[in-house]
């Protein structure tokens, strides 16, 4: 049972403040949705949880420890932060075998995660040839490699086909039901409504709400409407209402 605790996280990239005094908790046993418009700081925050980006201030703890202090990181935290975090010339199996070796994970677990993600038939193909959906599956296989108690998934449904989307929803719910901590980011409100119970909403690096899907949608009747009200002032990239000019 592992809780992620972020306290006062600040991350600055030159002149832009990507994450601003962000404080939240992610609890075990439930899928927590991490919601925000494009550029809100979701991915930056996830990278800080993983120790990949160093916060300018604040700290984040996983079960009371910094990521860098975990003894077998892959057995405690599994993450898919981007679809293609692999060398394009390596096969799916070789990619997973190398990662497994670093954390003392046996080879039969590589076969297991390939089967879980439906990648067994593609295991010996070079990963650079994979479609986005296949790459996502490989990323999820890597996240599951150490059978971790904490899972961080950044936009996991990107590129998945409808069957794949349904599969990942079930997977996330099952993992949470087993008592694991599951944080899943998305800019797709409907996707979050399907899978998450708890909710962390951010915009322009600020925490807008730490709530539940039920509470937030009760405010206005629909989660989507509640989300737009919440993020009204903090959306960086917005299209205009294009009327067209066909005569």
């Amino acid at each position, binding site marked *: 049972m592992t809780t992620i605790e972020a306290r006062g996280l600040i991350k600055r990239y030159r002149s832009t403040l990507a994450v601003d005094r962000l404080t939240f908790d992610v609890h075990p046993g439930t899928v927590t949705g991490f919601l925000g418009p494009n550029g809100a700081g979701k991915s930056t925050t996830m*990278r800080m949880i993983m120790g990949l*980006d*160093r916060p300018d201030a604040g700290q984040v703890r996983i079960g009371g420890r910094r990521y*860098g*202090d975990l003894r077998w*990181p892959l057995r405690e935290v599994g993450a898919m932060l981007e679809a293609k*975090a692999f060398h394009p010339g390596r096969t799916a199996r070789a990619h997973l075998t*190398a990662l497994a070796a670093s954390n*003392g994970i046996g080879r039969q677990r590589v076969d297991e995660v390939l089967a879980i993600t439906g990648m067994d038939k593609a295991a010996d193909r070079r990963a650079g040839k994979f479609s986005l959906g296949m790459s996502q599956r490989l990323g999820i296989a890597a996240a599951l490699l150490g059978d971790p108690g904490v899972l961080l998934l950044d936009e996991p449904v990107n590129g998945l086909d409808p069957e794949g989307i349904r599969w990942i929803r079930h997977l996330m719910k099952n993992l949470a039901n087993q008592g694991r901590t599951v944080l899943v980011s998305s800019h797709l409100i409907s996707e979050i409504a399907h899978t998450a119970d708890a909710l962390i909403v951010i915009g322009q690096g600020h925490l807008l709400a730490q709530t539940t899907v039920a509470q937030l949608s009760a405010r206005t009747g629909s989660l989507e409407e509640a989300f737009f009200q919440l993020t009204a002032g903090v959306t960086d990239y917005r299209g205009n209402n294009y009327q067209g000019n066909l005569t």
Partner: protein
Amino acid sequence: MTTISYRAGSFVRNGYGFRTAIRMEWHKLRSVRSTWWIVASFAVSLAAVALLVLGHEGYARLSAADRASFDPLHDTFIGLVLGQLLTGTLSVLTITTEFSSGMIRSTFAAVPRRSLVLVAKAAVLGAVTLAAGEIVAFVAYAAGQAALQAPAPHATLGQPGVMRAVLLAGAYPALIALIGLGVGALVRHTAGAICALVGVLFVLPLLFFSPSLQNAAQNFLPHGMANSMTAVKPLAHALPPALLFALLCGYAVAALAAGAWALTRRDA
């Protein structure tokens, strides 16, 4: 408390450490095709050049003075000009392709101590390039001597300096590989890192054009140092081979230290 048990982890297998990081890097290196293409090209270029050069030495046409200074080994390892670039490129690629593909974030998620990742990469690359280098150096030596025609004097491994020259010819590409790894960790981009390496190996020596500067190039720039390390008859104004070797090891350590510093300081 966590820190103590974590430190101990490296030794009692109660956590990731040098041993598991090495296994990861070995799996990575061998599972990419370009590794074996580069190692094969390295072997072919060194052996073929030795064969070609010593087969056309033209000793019979040399003047008496040139015959006196003829070094039966010296030209054997001219293939190192290309060979150093191949091992250097191999190790640049092992780190820059991780940055370009996003693999580096998978790597650092698995092994958060970044300096440990670089040390493991250095150990694996160093071992592979040293083993390949020594095997190929002895093959090139044997091929060269077989191609060398009488009346040119032949070398034997028992003659003073010959064994040392062959051994250092095999070690030199591994040291360039370690320098390349450090440069790759510092620069992060494949093209930029290879340019930097080519600059140090090939362009910098061109700037040392006057005779006095050439002595410095011979003693302090890698390729000049390789020439002295692999010659049986000492070149004029050259530092002793053992000293040059130690100096080159120092360059490798400095490059790796700079690379480790950059890896730990910057966001991945």
